[in-house]
């Protein structure tokens, strides 16, 4: 392994960390420098990630180590699964950064915002690249710290309340993860994530401790993954600015939890051990229930962002569901959904942000005829919403297809009912929005038309920095569905990951 191979994962983390730290020191009016730092960080990270992607697909490995605790080094490692998540983070970070620059134009405290924004992405990427549980825990906690200032960014009473609730949930979750990690460390040390898990040899001797550790880890990770009943922070955190919500829901926090569950099941415990310890049914039931519960709650919301939030609760649990099924096909669905849900959900949040920023439309009942005023945004919204429902050929369909097949493969046919039911509920809460948007009668006057970007329907319907990322992620959502069969799609990559995990 060359030095470059060693430093690569570290550089991926630093490429957003260092610009972030510099941005903290900038004055408010140094807009060009700040934007330059932001964008150079984004593009350097993209370049690094692409290099690593090519490297990993050719069989190289990337690993960075630092001695930290006894039997637990600080390890950053680029493997197939981590790169899937890192790529998603980098692409969405790029889109969200551009969006946020447009979104926050002229508002105060932008240096602080972009500083923490970069830290947040660094923590996410670090968490994705973490090579063992201790490193994962470290970035998991740092992520909590970096996102808190973003959630309370507006500094209003509601924002602070949401921030406190967010912290209460996530710090408690972090403590549970810590206990789980220590417990496992006591049994097996903290070796690197190993395909097929590294705990199998301890099964007979420590089955009770292993079960407890699994419960602690899933409970702790479940907080960020918004599993029922610890999902409560997510809808409340909606007071954050739109780019933050987008990032929280699509990549950073929620995905960190889901990604952690994937890691714990596949690379710590291993599918066989989870099967043998009989841990699959509770996880499966929990995920299935959360899917339905989230959808039902989404249906009851009158605010657009809240509805999207509960939709996230439901959609992220697809990942957990796919993992809990413990079969290879469902696993493909789960890992692909990690990316798919991110793309679609970020699109939806961008759209919600566009509506709110341009026309001050927050509630669903105000969305009537908004497609006539903002056709491109509404089109992107439609793509995202249809994708969530699972309509082909958008990304979401691919996931559901694999999850369904995967459920049949392991003989859990009832999961199909959950999928269908959730699809129906999705349709129930998304179709009216699409209908209102395109066919509803526009009001005489919008709540407040800010005239961003020119104010005419079409390319000038809102600020270009808001519109462009929205269209970009919408197009990508379609592309990953249409091109699912090719070798560069997230699905193909998910297959690569699963081939390794299940040694097919």
């Amino acid at each position, binding site marked *: 392994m060359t030095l470059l191979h060693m430093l690569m994962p570290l550089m991926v983390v630093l490429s957003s960390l260092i610009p972030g730290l510099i941005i903290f020191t900038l004055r408010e009016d140094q807009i060009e420098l700040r934007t330059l730092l932001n964008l150079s960080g984004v593009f350097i990270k993209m370049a690094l990630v692409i290099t690593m992607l090519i490297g990993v697909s050719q069989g190289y490995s990337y690993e960075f180590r630092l001695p930290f605790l006894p039997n637990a080094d600080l390890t950053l490692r680029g493997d197939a699964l981590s790169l899937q998540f890192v790529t998603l983070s980098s692409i969405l970070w790029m889109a969200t950064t551009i969006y946020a620059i447009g979104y926050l134009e002229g508002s105060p405290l932008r240096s602080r915002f972009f500083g923490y924004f970069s830290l947040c992405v660094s923590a996410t990427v670090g968490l994705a690249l973490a090579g063992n549980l201790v490193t994962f825990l470290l970035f998991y906690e740092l992520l909590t*710290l970096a996102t808190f*200032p973003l959630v309370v960014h507006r500094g209003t009473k509601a924002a602070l309340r949401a921030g406190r609730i967010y912290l209460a949930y996530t710090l408690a979750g972090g403590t549970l993860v810590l206990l789980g990690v220590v417990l496992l460390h006591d049994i097996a040390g903290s070796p690197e994530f190993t395909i097929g898990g590294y705990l199998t040899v301890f099964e007979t001797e420590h089955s009770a401790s292993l079960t407890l550790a699994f419960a602690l880890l899933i409970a702790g990770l479940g907080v960020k993954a918004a599993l029922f009943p610890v999902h409560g922070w997510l809808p409340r955190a909606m007071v954050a600015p739109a780019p933050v919500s987008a990032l929280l829901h699509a990549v950073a926090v929620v995905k960190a939890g889901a990604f952690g569950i994937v890691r714990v099941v596949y690379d710590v415990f291993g599918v066989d051990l989870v099967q043998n310890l009989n841990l699959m049914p509770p996880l499966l039931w929990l995920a299935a229930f959360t899917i339905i519960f989230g959808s039902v709650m989404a249906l009851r919301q009158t605010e657009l962002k809240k509805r999207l939030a509960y939709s996230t609760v439901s959609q992220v649990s697809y990942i957990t569901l796919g993992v809990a099924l413990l079969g290879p096909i469902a696993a493909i669905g789960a890992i692909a959904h990690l990316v798919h849900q991110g793309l679609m959900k970020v699109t939806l949040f961008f759209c919600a942000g566009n509506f709110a920023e341009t026309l001050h439309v927050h509630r669903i009942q105000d969305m009537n005829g908004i497609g006539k005023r903002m056709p491109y945004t509404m089109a992107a919204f439609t793509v995202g919403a249809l994708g969530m429902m699972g309509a082909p050929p958008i990304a979401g369909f691919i996931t559901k297809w694999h999850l369904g097949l995967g459920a049949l493969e392991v003989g859990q046919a009832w999961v199909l009912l959950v999928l269908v039911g959730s699809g129906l509920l999705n349709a129930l809460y998304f179709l009216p929005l699409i209908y209102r948007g395109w066919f509803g009668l526009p009001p005489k006057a919008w709540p407040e038309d800010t005239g961003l970007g020119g104010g005419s329907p079409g390319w000038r319907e809102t600020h270009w920095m808001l519109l462009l990322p929205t269209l970009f992620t919408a197009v990508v959502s379609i592309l990953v569905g249409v091109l699912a069969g090719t070798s560069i799609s997230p699905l193909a990559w998910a297959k690569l990951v699963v081939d390794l995990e299940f040694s097919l």
Partner: protein
Amino acid sequence: MNWALLSLALPLLSAFWVLLVRRAVSETILFATLVSLTAALAAFYQVQSDPVQTLLLGDWTLPLAIRFELTSLNALLMVLTATIHFLVGLYNRFSRHGSGRYSDYWPLSAVLHSALVALWLSRDLFNWYVTLELLTLVAVALVTLSGPKAYRAALGYLVLSLIASLFYLLGVALLYGEYGVLDLDRLSALAVDSANTRLALLLMVLGLMLKAALWPLYLWLPDAHANAPTAVSALLSALVVKGPLFILWLTLTQIAPVEFAQQLGLIFALFGSVALLSGAWSALRTPYLKTLVAYSTVAQLGYALITLGLLLRWQTPELATALWLFVIAHALAKVSAFLAAGEMQATFGSKELIAVRGASQSMPLAMFAFAVAGGSLIGLPPSGGFLAKWILLQPLFAEPAHWPWALAILLGTLASAAYVFRVVALAFDRYDVETELPQTDALAQWLSLLPALVVWGLALISQPLMLWLSTGANP
């Protein structure tokens, strides 16, 4: 050993010097502290090749001599003491809210420094009594520097400290009466399990617990630490309460009969758990910023008490590594927290917690320092507080019977997160932009951030650090 003696003597000599000449007071003391720090580092370097060095003061032989012993643990504590004195001194010298260049802070803090180093080095029960008294008197004098408003707290501190010293002294007298020696090693070899020994140790434990503000004998601490000048609060919370803890640890591990130590250990661990929660609860309730930080010390000492208790209960010397990591991490984090809190309190002109509303905007650096220090107090990875908690948690998970203690640690973690973020969340309350921002002092804020960065930086040297502490702590 010579380096260690130099590190001990320099601050004391410089204190006498400035009392005599009264010129360039702060500069002299700061310079002496810096040299003392260098000497401590040299001593630490030396002790790596020669792990345990002893010195019999004045060339007397035991049992008459007073014995000094240098291990990598107390060398590290000397480095810590000197570093903190230097940083706090810099703050006190250069912050607009410091005590000024000629105040009595300088000679007093230098004497405090020497007293602490003497305490770390001593292995003699009576010499410890002398260093404890010196520590107390100087600490009280330092508290009074913030003027008449601190007199009541200072007097309370003094009175309780004096009676605590008498408890300790009576215990020492009874031990000497029984065994005829004061040297720790000799006592360790001679001590047997007798009623007299138990009574003597119990008296000493009571006195030391009172001095170290260990639950439930902590009542004097919040007032004294919150009312002292900021630099003094930092020294008191970071270092002074750790002195008695050091003696407590050594006497109980070396002299106490095993059965007695185990009984005490259980009580300590229970008290520690209560301290974690009750300290945090008080920190959550108080309306004053510095009082909150002071209560956090009460809570954090709970970690030390649990660790010490379990160490005695299970007779596992390995836990000493966790104990001293807690002490080091808490010392650094608490210096940051107090300097940041004090700087904010002085800048906003109010000691109320509510005054920090919006501080993330008006004093971002100080607030950041507080938050970073708070992260270590909570024990978030990879800070020093996390390292300590990690080592403590290892044996707790080894047997299911120990799991309840892990629960106490978990609750303590959450409770400390609650009071840290009570401040941090308030700081994010959006500042009314119309109001004029107060004039802030960037250098003072940076100085408050520095120790917090160091405590997180401990992660980079975690492995050697654990090695040093484990070799030094298990003589």
